[in-house]
């Protein structure tokens, strides 16, 4: 979609693909990471009755910019016993994995990086690259803490893929498409057409679907939260036991890239949850553009709604992070294998039966 537009605009497919690949990075991911880092610090500070950064700009709004400037100036330390090629590739891979997800996320009805039919499948698959990057970082650092962190992270990510996939399959059974744009359009109308409220199903099926959809939403939210390695599932970078996990040995810009990837991932998983359950970019109450008769305003509103919903879930992630303590490794595995996966399976079965009505 956006690719065709840029092909027409520039006249060459190569420049069009470069522009459409870099557009979400500079227009969305980087500004989002800048704001989210500050937001995280402010939310954590206010939850703990502190003020957070207050020095740079009004209430510290330029703090992240100052941090980025500092990180750029920092020395890029590579220890002698590090595996240099792997050590250098790892942050790039981690970021590539989390950024590649944005290619298939529909930001508005007229902007989607690549409108592929296997969008959801692609997202689930490509985010697996992050695991390789994390393992690579942990192994190449040649340090027992990083390796432990990377191993934990890999175990965690692989375990929690399963409940995520089960819920995705549940959604698939109802919608019958993996294309995220189509999936979103299927929820159009007002907010009672969202997946969490049973989608386009009618009558008794819709009422029966709602509780199981809520269960599905809770399961996928917990498992995606674990996939982005955030508290209470941050055992892979548990700073009180493992220094800071797989990025202990990194400094300067490479560390910043890991950080950027983490925040990009946070939004990516929130975006998936939004697309699957909360109607993606759709407005719950209709568009201003329709009432004013300005068709160009609708995509802008849709982008705003999408960002709003995504950021709301990111905020809940932060809220959880500053509320809950870290889980032990056995508790982590127990939650996944003893609770989330059975619940997801039963949910899948019941939703399957309901769709037969």
């Amino acid at each position, binding site marked *: 979609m956006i690719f065709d537009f840029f092909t027409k605009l520039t006249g060459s497919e190569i420049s069009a693909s470069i522009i459409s690949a870099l557009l979400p990075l500079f227009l969305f991911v980087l500004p989002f990471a800048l704001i989210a880092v500050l937001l995280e610090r402010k939310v954590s*500070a*206010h*939850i*703990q*009755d*502190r003020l957070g950064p207050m020095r740079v700009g009004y209430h510290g709004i330029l703090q992240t910019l100052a941090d980025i400037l500092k990180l750029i100036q920092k020395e890029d330390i590579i220890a002698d016993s590090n595996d240099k090629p792997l050590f250098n590739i790892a942050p790039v891979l981690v970021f590539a994995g989390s950024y590649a997800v944005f290619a298939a996320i529909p930001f508005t009805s007229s902007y989607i990086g690549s409108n592929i039919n296997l969008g959801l499948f692609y997202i689930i698959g490509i985010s697996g690259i992050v695991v390789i990057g994390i393992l690579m970082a942990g192994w190449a650092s040649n340090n027992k803490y990083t390796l432990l962190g990377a191993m934990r992270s890999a175990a965690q990510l692989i375990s929690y893929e399963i409940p995520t996939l089960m819920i995705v399959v549940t959604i698939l059974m109802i919608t019958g498409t993996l294309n995220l744009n189509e999936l979103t359009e299927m929820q159009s109308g007002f907010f009672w057409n969202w997946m969490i409220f049973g989608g386009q199903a009618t009558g008794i099926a819709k009422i029966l679907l709602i509780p199981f959809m809520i269960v599905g939403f809770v399961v996928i939210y917990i498992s995606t939260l674990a996939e982005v390695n955030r508290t209470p599932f941050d055992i892979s970078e548990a700073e009180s036991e493992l220094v800071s996990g797989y990025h202990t040995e990194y400094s300067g810009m490479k560390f910043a890239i890991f950080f950027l990837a983490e925040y990009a991932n946070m939004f990516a998983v929130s975006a998936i949850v939004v697309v699957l359950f909360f109607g993606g970019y759709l407005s719950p109450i209709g568009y201003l553009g329709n009432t004013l008769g300005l068709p160009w305003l609708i995509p802008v509103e849709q982008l705003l709604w999408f960002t709003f919903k995504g950021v709301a879930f990111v905020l809940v992630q932060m*809220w*959880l992070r500053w*509320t809950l303590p870290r889980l032990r490794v056995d508790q982590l595995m127990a939650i996944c294998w003893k*609770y989330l996966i059975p619940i997801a399976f039963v949910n899948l079965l019941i939703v399957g039966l309901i769709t037969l009505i």
Partner: protein
Amino acid sequence: MKEYFNNIYLAFSTIFIGMMVTFKHLFVPAVTIQYPNVKPQLPSRERNRLYVNMDDCIGCDQCARACPVNCIEIETVKSIPGEDLGQTTNGKRKALWVTKFDIDIAKCFYCELCVFPCPTDCIYMTDVYEFSEFERDNLIYDFVPLTEEERIEKKENHEKFMAEKAAQKEAELKAKESKNNSQDKK
């Protein structure tokens, strides 16, 4: 099976309670004091940096003697007749030039024992607590208002005066002796 569902219920209810607590704290005013801009209100009997009001100091050396860590060093020189040093605020006549009043604030441990013996209340604790220095020597505070030359001058004046006095005495003594001698000869 009952335990299984109970666990799920317990997990969600406790997470919900915890999140409510943190949500309430999100709107509690922060307890942070923006320190260099806003200074905290100190207790009225807070003990901090010492200050000496040299207008009132009579050089009695009682603070230096009270100090348990010997951080106060005082040297005094007697004034010569004709010099008027003025009075302290509580009416004591000053008779000594204080040529050295050094407080090594790096040694001081803020016990306030020097403050009580002072007869003119000229040494006291202030509320200044930000006085870090890069050089330790800068923490030796000199309170004497006189310049280096003046201090030397006061000392020389005193020595000259004493020498004159001694010379006078000797002359008197000699005069007496010579008188005695002459009387003896007679």
